[in-house]
């Protein structure tokens, strides 16, 4: 249509790159989620909380749940990956982290296109999401 890539029926290069990374990360996360859930539900890997007992806890508030089950907040689950239920957190974390990776990947693409403002937006977004993922932003809970 015109020389402006944003005035084309086709998606821009950075949009295609972003979509490709998002798609791969999402599919990998989904596959891991399915695999780990099967391992958990079928009891192939022993869970921290037996599946038959989980219904005793899901009606508690998060504070009561953490206290009763002695589960800790933050990235504590990484040390518990030997248990089937915590293994599911790998897929969940990947789905939560893929967007950060997408923004990091498009920064050089945008920079190369002399789109420095959007490269800065991407960097800022990656920082904000990483900060949220870090667990440094706590709250009182209840």
């Amino acid at each position, binding site marked *: 249509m015109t020389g402006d890539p944003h005035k084309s029926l086709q998606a821009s290069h950075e*949009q295609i790159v972003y979509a490709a990374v998002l798609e791969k990360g999402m599919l990998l996360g989904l596959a891991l989620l399915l695999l780990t859930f099967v391992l958990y539900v079928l009891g192939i890997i022993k869970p921290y909380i037996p599946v038959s007992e989980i*219904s005793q806890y899901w009606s508690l508030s998060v504070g009561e749940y953490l206290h009763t089950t002695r589960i800790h907040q933050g990235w504590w689950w990484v040390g518990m990956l030997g248990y089937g239920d915590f293994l599911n957190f790998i897929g*969940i974390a990947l*789905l939560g982290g893929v967007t*950060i990776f997408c923004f990091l990947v498009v920064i050089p693409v945008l920079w190369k296109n002399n789109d420095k403002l959007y490269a800065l937006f991407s960097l800022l977004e990656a920082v904000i999401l990483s900060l*949220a993922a870090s*667990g440094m932003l706590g709250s009182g809970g209840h």
Partner: protein
Amino acid sequence: MTRTGKMGVLCLALLLSVTLLAGNGLAGEGVMAADATSSAPWWMWPLLLLVVTFVMGVAAVLGGVGGGVLFVPIISGFFPFHLDFVRGAGLLVALSGALAAGPGLLKMNLASLRLAMPVALIASSFAILGAMVGLALPTQVVQIALGVTILGICVLMLIAKKSTVPDVPKADTISSVLRIYGVYQEASTGEIIDWKIHRTWQGLLLFVAIGIMAGMFGLGAGWANVPVLNLLMGAPLKISVATSKFLLSITDTSAAWIYLNQGCVIPMIVVPSLIGIMAGSFVGVRLLKVAKPGLVLI
């Protein structure tokens, strides 16, 4: 949406809001499910979640909503889970539905990365704040506020008109500088639509409130994204719906991490919900491409 459809949505929302407000006295336990949970086998609830969230996934793409806005009131009202876990799962549901739909929408050039990025920067920052406030407030307060919000969303859906291709006489300065414009082909008619936006700073300001509510209630925020992008900022309806859906993959990521780090994730609730919503979203994206704009729910 037809008048009958709108009345149906109103009735459903009223029922859910009343359920949520009434459930306040039970300190977060699902009212309908409170008695059933003792006798029902544990696997019944994850199985039901899978079916319900699949249907939500299809509907959510067509409405440009994340699924969380359907998930949180329905699951907290009819399932025996505490609101803390429902909100955590709701955000992950909205996030996963958006992740599943995002690549397809970006490749089809229906979702606009240039439109989404500045908006996402604001919404995701304030979603973190909303999540922190929501987790610090007592459950009863959040539950009442959620019930009121659902009613507000219902009113918004009833009174807000949609505009297939809004009239934008002139792009404003901010959107011109940011080069937020594009072209897309309406698949149902073959028409090529050249779009631009206006009232950008007013729209960005509204995304502060949208981000806070998304984080606080675990609702996703598509119900608010679409009217702001379409009616206020003037993006075509399909671009608004698709960009809103993609936007949720960013906004809800920030809030979902807060809930995840606070311990509000039980895999037995989250995983069946995510698988259901993602499978439904794959189907929904294919339907959105061929759907006439008038069939889009919001």
